[in-house]
């Protein structure tokens, strides 16, 4: 009785800390789930992982054909501009929707054995990081092809990727925790993502946004993250500090909020199974 219980339902730790501590014991599970999602997705397809590279490239090609004449004067090396934008947005879209899918699949397990539910959204982030890494290969190839400058500023790229991971994780955690109870949320999220995609300067230059809509640019975390990634890659310069600060504030804030919200609800998931 004197010794500390291995499991105590009435632990006094805050849920935020408690779910982090629990995750430690299951840390080997996350890379395995990432591997599983990548393996399974491509196991029976002809191109295999090639799809990961092909998909954004195809998207980029379509947008280039459609808009290069429109924006080509203002945006030289348009494919590089568009591809960086797509990489940021696809990362966000994939992570958030995949976090929901992963947790939905995971509730089947959570109803039978104990494991920390956060491994599922976290594995969604891991999968997106791998995809992002793979897409860097065609990006670099296109940059070389279009004689895009390669600058030392490229070493800055990991920071926006880390921030993007945090932001996507935060949204993914909140979304997944809610989608377990409300399954029409995913459809709403799709619509929202669609709007978000067009409201972020992914395929068009920032300058065409009218003055009365500029406030949205200022509060849009994806815009700031995109600048942080695009400046070193496309322009070969470091982003302005204020973009880095706003992106950091958003990402860390949303990640903490998501972790807190998810931790509070983590015992509900097994009941929903």
């Amino acid at each position, binding site marked *: *009785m004197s*010794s500390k*219980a*291995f*499991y*105590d*339902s*009435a632990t006094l730790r805050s849920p935020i800390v408690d779910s982090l501590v629990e995750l430690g*014991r*299951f840390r*080997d*599970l996350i890379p*395995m789930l990432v591997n*599983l999602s990548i*393996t*399974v997705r491509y*196991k029976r397809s002809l191109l295999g992982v090639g799809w990961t590279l092909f998909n954004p490239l195809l998207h980029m090609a379509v947008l280039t054909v459609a808009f290069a004449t429109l924006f080509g004067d203002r945006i030289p090396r348009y494919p590089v501009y568009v591809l960086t934008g797509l990489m940021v947005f696809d990362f966000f879209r994939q992570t958030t929707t995949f976090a929901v899918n992963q947790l939905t699949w995971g509730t089947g*397990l*959570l*109803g*039978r*054995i*104990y*494991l920390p539910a956060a491994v599922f959204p976290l594995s969604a982030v891991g999968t997106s990081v791998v995809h992002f890494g793979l897409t860097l290969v065609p990006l670099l190839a296109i940059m070389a092809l279009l004689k895009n400058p390669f600058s030392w500023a490229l070493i800055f790229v990991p920071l926006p990727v880390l921030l993007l991971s945090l932001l996507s994780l935060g949204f993914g955690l909140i979304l997944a925790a809610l989608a377990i*109870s*409300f*399954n*029409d*949320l995913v459809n*709403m999220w799709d619509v929202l993502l669609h709007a978000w995609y067009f409201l972020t300067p992914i395929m068009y230059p920032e300058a065409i946004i009218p003055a009365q809509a500029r406030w949205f640019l200022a509060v849009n975390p994806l815009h700031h993250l995109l600048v942080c990634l695009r400046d070193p890659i496309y322009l070969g310069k470091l982003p302005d500090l204020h973009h880095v600060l706003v992106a950091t504030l958003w990402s860390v804030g949303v990640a903490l909020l998501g972790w807190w919200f998810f931790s509070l609800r983590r*015992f509900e998931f*097994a*009941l929903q199974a």
Partner: protein
Amino acid sequence: MEPIILLEDVWLRYRVPEERIRSIKEYAIRRLKGNLAMQQFWALRGVNLEVAKGEVLGIMGRNGAGKTTLMKVIARVLRPTRGRARVWGHVAPLLGLGAGFHDELTGRENIFLASAILGFSRQDVARRFDRIVAFAELEEFIDRPLRTYSSGMRARLGFAVATDVAPEVLILDEVLAVGDAAFQEKCHARINQFRNDGTTVLVVSHQASTIRSLCSRALLLDHGQIAFDGPVPDAIQRYNQIFNAALGLQG
């Protein structure tokens, strides 16, 4: 005596599935109508239980009496809505046999995945890998995808993974029907070995004979409460009474 499981006034509430609101639209409509009161169902109602290290405890009760819910609380799958549950050790729930297996992965990959889901580190599993495969008798098939396995082979792999490390608490839910007769013999030998080594075993069963042959103490659950806790013969007698009373009501 040193307890290994201690439940203090444990209550557990489910929301009744028919009443579960599955969409925001529905939630909004009900909210507007002021019709949000959800039906709830208490699966456990004030359970107090102390199990000593090395005990073999039988859990009896009719369908819906709360047996599986109680096991899930001990296995940490469900958190008590009220009350406190404590366990001093690792629980191997055989209710989760084969949890996390994936058809597209090979037997080898599945061993690592299923073990990680049970909370074992990769390094630890790598060390015990050959022993797991040998117990499951799957040496020739281990690099083939799981979808080519028969259900017996899957079950053998699941049992081998879940029981490779002796747990402090083992939960046996219903009859253990894993593989053919020879393999079942092996499973029972392993469970007996655990028992002799001091593992606490919880046996959930409808069958009096199973409880009688394995357990030293039995619980009888009825409507989420412990109706009896004590020697096996008395528990079985009470179980039969409750069962016959229920039959009488129907007839």
